[in-house]
């Protein structure tokens, strides 16, 4: 998008005192539905900020922001006999995703590819158009993050309307789009001096240095091709619970299943799509019980290969953004980076 020159230069750097975060959120709420990370038990979750305050020092959320663009359960259309009516719950106002991390922004860009293409997905696209991204760079990282290996963090370079960086008692706010500029104008943020960029860079490089986990992407394609029969898969067949959790929490997983739900009149109802997972036995099952991925190892392999090899030819990008959710969520501690290390003989 071409930006007006004045916009590009003048108001790119702004500051938001932490004490004024609530005011900022209130100002956003006037023009949009604002979603942000809030506490859920010992974890976090993206929720509509009604009476809740966002907790921006969160590690990660249980489900990725994907859930606000491609809902876990979504009515595609309702029908009555053979009359079909598309029911689409598009947000009436723009929705602001506040405080989403660089890896999750990258994941949304991947989903943009998935839900675009020849047959655009209107449900995703309409929500996406209405979505404003106020991203948050990661100045703290946690054990399972490996974004730097994939170039998806801890710093975000593009894909945001606004970008925040925690500088201690204030946030640096960078403007990415005219839409972002409008929002900051609305909220009346003050300009920040250019030197804050130095502070930002220092904090981000510290964060980068604290990242412990790595996934070496070099020749990944070949590595996986050569190791289709590596003993690690056999081990995983015994380890993996095939519970599906890793795929349910992945910000780039997109699979779904459709179900027709009928009303009691048995004539009217709706078609719904529900997130599905390639780790599940029924995923590759067709009529008469024929199943193309009966063995657990075949399913695990499909997941790993899909993320690390197949996305590339399909959507021109890697399918993993290094958010670490699948590692966080696995009861058995199965770790995609460990698998790769093992294949590399490390």
């Amino acid at each position, binding site marked *: 998008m071409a930006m007006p020159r004045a916009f590009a230069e003048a108001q790119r750097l702004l500051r938001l005192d932490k004490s004024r975060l609530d005011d900022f959120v209130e100002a956003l709420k006037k023009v949009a539905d604002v979603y942000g990370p809030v506490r*859920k*038990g*010992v*974890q976090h*979750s993206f929720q509509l900020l009604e009476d809740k305050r966002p907790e921006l020092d969160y590690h990660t959320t*249980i*489900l990725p922001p994907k*859930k606000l663009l491609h809902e*876990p*359960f979504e009515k595609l259309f309702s029908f009555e006999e053979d009359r079909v009516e598309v029911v689409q719950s598009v947000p009436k106002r723009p929705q602001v995703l506040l405080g989403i991390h660089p890896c999750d922004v990258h994941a949304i860009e991947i989903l943009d590819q998935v839900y675009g293409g020849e047959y655009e997905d209107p449900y995703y696209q309409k929500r996406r158009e209405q979505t404003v991204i106020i991203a948050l760079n990661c100045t703290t990282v946690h054990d399972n993050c490996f974004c730097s290996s994939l170039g998806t963090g801890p710093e975000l370079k593009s894909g945001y309307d606004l970008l925040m960086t925690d500088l201690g008692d204030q946030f640096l706010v960078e403007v990415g789009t005219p839409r972002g500029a409008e929002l900051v104008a609305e909220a009346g943020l003050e300009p920040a001096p250019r030197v804050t960029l130095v502070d930002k860079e220092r904090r981000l490089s510290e964060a980068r240095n604290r990242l412990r986990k790595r996934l070496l992407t070099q020749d990944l394609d070949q590595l996986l091709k050569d190791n289709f029969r590596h003993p690690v898969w056999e081990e995983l067949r*015994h*380890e*993996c*619970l*095939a*519970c*599906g*959790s890793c795929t*349910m*929490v992945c910000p780039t997983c997109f699979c779904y299943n459709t*179900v027709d739900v*009928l009303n*009691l009149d*048995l004539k009217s109802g709706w078609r719904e799509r*529900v*997130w599905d*997972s390639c780790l*599940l*036995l*029924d995923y590759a099952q067709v009529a008469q019980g024929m199943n193309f991925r009966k063995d*657990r190892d075949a399913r695990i392999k499909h997941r790993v290969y899909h993320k690390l090899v197949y996305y590339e030819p399909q959507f021109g990008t890697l399918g993993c953004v290094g958010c670490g959710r699948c590692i*966080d*969520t696995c*009861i*058995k501690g199965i770790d995609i980076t460990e698998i790769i290390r093992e294949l590399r003989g490390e």
Partner: protein
Amino acid sequence: MTQPKIAIFKLSSCAGCQLEVLNLEPYLLQLAGVLDISYFVMAKRDNAPGPYDIGFVEGAVTCGEEIAKLKRARKDCKVLVALGSCACYGGIPSMKNWEPQREVEKRVYEDLSAIESTKAFGIDQYVPVDAYLKGCPVSKEELVNFIKSTLLGMRPYLRPHSVCVECKLGENVCVFLSHREPCMGPVTTAGCGALCPARGKACDGCRGPANDPNPVSLAEAFKELGLHRPDIIRRFRKYAGATLEFEKGVEAL
């Protein structure tokens, strides 16, 4: 379409699954309009003899009389459905299967002469079963879904996979990872909406094994949580201990 005749039979059970039928208040009258509830002793006094189109059997089989009753029901019903985990796997009554029968009985009765009880099994131990509605108690949503599908002559979609899937769809905090609770969710059939984890409690495995469970690996994970062998055995031998899948969890150790 003439209204299909429905029968509800009770074997050894708590009657909770039948009660779930009465708990369908929002639909009950509507359902009564499309179905002929022909035999339902808990709810009505005039109970018609068979044949019936769909028979729901609640409860585990625990004595000879019940085997006979079950076989009659099988003859009388075109479609026979196991209603709830007792009928599917033996359920809670099957907990006694792993102790000497008389031992257990003696703890309850002094005079054992009148007691003739067998090990508790699901009904498919004795008769062919057309469909299984799992859960202790059954899920009302699945029950209604099943009835609708059967009226249409189709196979209902009952989630066959692990509870974890629904747990994630509901964005619950995982009690296994966050609270170190030994959750049976990864090997248990979904369909309950991950009801227990959603309320901060580990899944108790009440819906029995999922379609591709890995109980051996889960038993190991339990061990890593610090559970001892008897604790783990108790978790697998609760609602569905009589299934081969959960028995594997017991044998894993």
